[in-house]
């Protein structure tokens, strides 16, 4: 496992300090504290992915604002909302914006630690899937445009003849493109082709 990074955003010094103490018990972790949402957002683009412990009530940008800003990159920060005012509407809003947990202050330190562990697990999972997708995309990027057209036809479940007719080429040529395609993707069967395509996010067009 690589170094796990924990970012604490809270306006209260005592809370930040105590969290820092507590989370340092996890081990192999790197903890950074921010006293406001603004200061976090300023430095967010340069930060490594990690777990984000976010207070909602803060001067400047509030916790929800921070969430909506960083929510587009869910793989980078796994947000856990830590608030003193448990409110269903606020909790729902936070979850919609990508928070994986909503913890009311004060809370059991073990629960907090479990949540942080869970965040790291999720982060790890999301990292593996991303790697798979990246590989599939890189494989697909090797294909020519004709080969991609044929691939899309295959995804749609069309026969060689129909593909040839749609592309206005001979079925034979389609067969050649199909062979090249499978070679480039280093697969033997059509099902394998389709898995890569789906992993890369190439979904059939309705």
């Amino acid at each position: 496992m690589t170094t796990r990074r924990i970012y604490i955003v809270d306006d209260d010094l005592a809370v930040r300090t105590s969290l820092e103490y507590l989370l340092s018990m996890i081990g192999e972790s790197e903890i950074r504290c921010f006293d406001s949402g603004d200061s976090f957002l300023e430095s967010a683009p340069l930060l490594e992915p990690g777990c984000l412990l976010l207070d909602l009530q803060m001067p400047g940008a509030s916790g929800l604002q921070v969430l909506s800003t960083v929510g587009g990159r869910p793989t980078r920060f796994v947000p856990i909302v830590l608030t003193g005012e448990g409110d269903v509407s606020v909790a729902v809003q936070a979850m919609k914006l990508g928070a994986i947990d909503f913890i009311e202050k004060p809370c059991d330190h073990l629960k907090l630690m479990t949540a942080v562990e869970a965040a790291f697990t999720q982060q790890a999972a999301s990292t593996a899937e991303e790697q798979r997708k990246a590989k599939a995309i890189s494989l697909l990027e090797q294909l020519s445009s004709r080969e991609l057209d044929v691939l899309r036809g295959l995804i749609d479940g069309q026969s060689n003849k129909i593909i040839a007719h749609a592309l206005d080429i001979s079925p034979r040529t389609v067969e050649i493109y199909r062979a090249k395609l499978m070679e480039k993707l280093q697969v033997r069967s059509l099902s394998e082709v389709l898995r890569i395509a789906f992993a890369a996010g190439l979904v059939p067009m309705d």
Partner: protein
Amino acid sequence: MQELNPPPQRLGGSLPVRMTPIVPALVLAAQLVCVLALCGWAFGLAGLSGGFFGGYRMQPLTAVAFMTIGFGILLSGTSRRGFTGWVMALPLLIGCSALAQELSGLSLGIDRLLFPGSVVHQFRSYPGRPGVLPALGILLLALASLAVISRAPAVRRLSVVFSCVAIAAAAISGTLLPLGMSTPGPETRYALMSLPSALTICLLAIAVVALRRQYAWPGSPDCGFGSATIQTCLLLCVSMPVVSALGHFWAERAGHASAEMIEIVQAVAQVALSCGLIAWAWMRIARESGARSAVNLALDSAPVSITDVDGRILRWSAGCERLYGWTSEQALGRFQQKLTGTPPISAAGIEALLGGARHENEVTAYRRDGRALRVLHSCQAVQPRSDLPPMVVHSMTDITARTQAERAVLASDARLSLAIDLHELGIFEWSLATDRFVFHGHAERLFALAPGAFEGGIEAWKQHLRATFGTTFHTPGPPETWPAGRHPFRLVAVEGGIAKVVEGTAHIHHGPGEGDISMIGIVMDATEREQRAEMLKSRESELRSILETVPEAMITIDGDGRIRSFSATAETLFGYAATEVLGQDVRLLLPRYVRPSGKPVVPGQDGAAETRITAGLDRHGNELPIEIAIGAAEVGNQRIAIAFIRNLREQLAAQARINELREQLLHASRASAMGEMGAGLAHELNQPLTATSNLLGAIDLMMAREGDPEQVRCMLELARQEVLRAGSIIRRMRAFAAKGELDIQAEPLEEVIGETLQLARSRRRAPGVRLRYRPSVAAPSVLADRIQIQQVLVNLLNNAFDALAGLNDRQPEIIISTRQLNDGHIMVSVIDNGPGLPEAIINRPFETFSSTKVNGMGLGLSICRRIVEAHGGCFSLRNVPDGGAAVEFTLPTFAELELKAG
């Protein structure tokens, strides 16, 4: 002087003659004698006509003549005196014819005109003819009777002479026969007279004299006694020797005494009679001269003077002395016109005076002391004797008072007529005797009559009134039954919709006589007055209704503190009916302890109402809190006070309720603010709890892993601090929740504001609002109740947050700043950049319940102001120029107070 008061006979006897009763008595006696004589002739009774004494009888013609004279005398005493002359023609004729026949010896043949049969059988020269003496007596009496009625005084004087001669002749000749001194015969017939004739002559002569006594003796010299005395004396003087001579003859004849004795007795009788006559005359004269001197005195007391023709004063009466102030000594010899300052009589005037004219004029004279007199001056020239120079008799009458009175009367008349004219009064008169109306002044116009057109009597008058005014006087029945006294009337004629009102009074007067009823009345136009009265009445009712709607109780009080009016509201307030308290002392309405000892003083200035709050006392003895405003006014010539009284009981109760409500609201607001604050405090409390929990968790883990004890202690210390912090937060919250009095202490302003900001930041409803604090004060301690000032700030921030909600076009921002002022105060401003405050709130920000918020209670600013003002600060609102509201308040600084104390 007598000339100044001319006797009545100068007027030619035109005055009625009042006959004394003796004259007709005497005449009737004479007539009786004559009638008896005639009867004697008629019935052959010689005794009746005087035949007892020597057969010398009264002739019938003589009797007729005497009767005619008697009739004439009676006539002359009546108003038909002119006939006397004609009546006397008969006796004159008889007398003259008898004398003429006697003298000439002729016979006219009238002697036996009456009773010729009886007459001829007489022993007599000419039977039937009146004797010489009776004929003379007839002539004398006839002349005397004529003289009495003559206009010439000289002739009138002769009547007495004629009478006296007739009496003397009759007395002598008439007694000769009865006394037997003579016998009838042809020789003696000239000296004899029958007894009836003598008696008749005497009676008639005395009657003439008595008749003459009715008149003063005219033109007689001023000898000090009256003509009546003289006449009586004359009569006595004439008859006395006759009586004495007759007595002498009788005594001698009868031979009662010797001749000497008779002479002596006669002389003694003469002397005695003369003495008696003189004594009687003396007494009469003394009495009359006394009366005359009284007359003189009376005349002297009148202002009369006598001057010569040039005006030199010859006589100056006591009246003049009094009138002019000059004494007689001073005045005599001086010129009257100079002495009295009157204009002298002109030469022509003197000529006229000497010609007998009477001069009379009205002049202004001057008294000795210079005072002016108005004198009626009349003068006349007199010449008492031809050997004396003519004199001028002046008679002055002081008419100063009369002139003044006349002038006053004239002026009064003029005033009256002017008043009648100006006031358009009319006067009308009527009397039953004439049954005519007389109008003066405006009466005809007021009665709607053409001038001078109305001629009718009372009935026409009533008809006219009925036709014009539809009514008439309320005097039923004929005028005789009208009661005397005043009868006011009022007549209304409607012309073209305008009522013309005529008012007046008729006064009916009953005179002493039967049917002597008159009416005098006054009439005036009352139209305008009625209209004014109507207007006044309507204005008064309007005012009254206005006053009745005045919500305050109104009482008017006169100068003596007595209640003049008591409004309906006052009745309700005090429980008295107006009728009960009118005229009572106004102190009745005040409790004993606020009653002024003296009379309530009416305020001096008009309209300056003085308002004060005091207590009143109602009918049941309950005290009322009242507010009383007293103003003064002048009604007629009396000062009155007008008191407006408001019952404060309800107002005070309302005030108390409002205060109570405000307290409750303040508490509610505090509670609501506490709710707000509670949320923030809960958040704040969460922080130390969270920190503590985390720290304890970390310690737990570290203990389990047997970590660094130093680090554990450090974390424990941190946890302890957090717990303490939580405790202080709870304390603060409790202090805020408590509803207590102001607890002013020196508080660091930074800290107060900082805590508030922390609270404010914890608000959920403030997303994205930038809250800035810009302190600019070096001395940050203020004298304040921390919690309350925090409440103010929280309120203001809440307002600002609300104002900023929904602001899209710019970054919402609240700036809290402080600024040191020169007067030892710090100004705290809360400025937002929202839409600003509406005008209505700026103008009256602190009105309770005026809110701009949909759910606001409108208490925020009001409470804030109260708190700030309780701290001795000011609170103000304004809008900043580039949008947004600024709320500012000041607080006293602590350092300043120390300096003051030092």
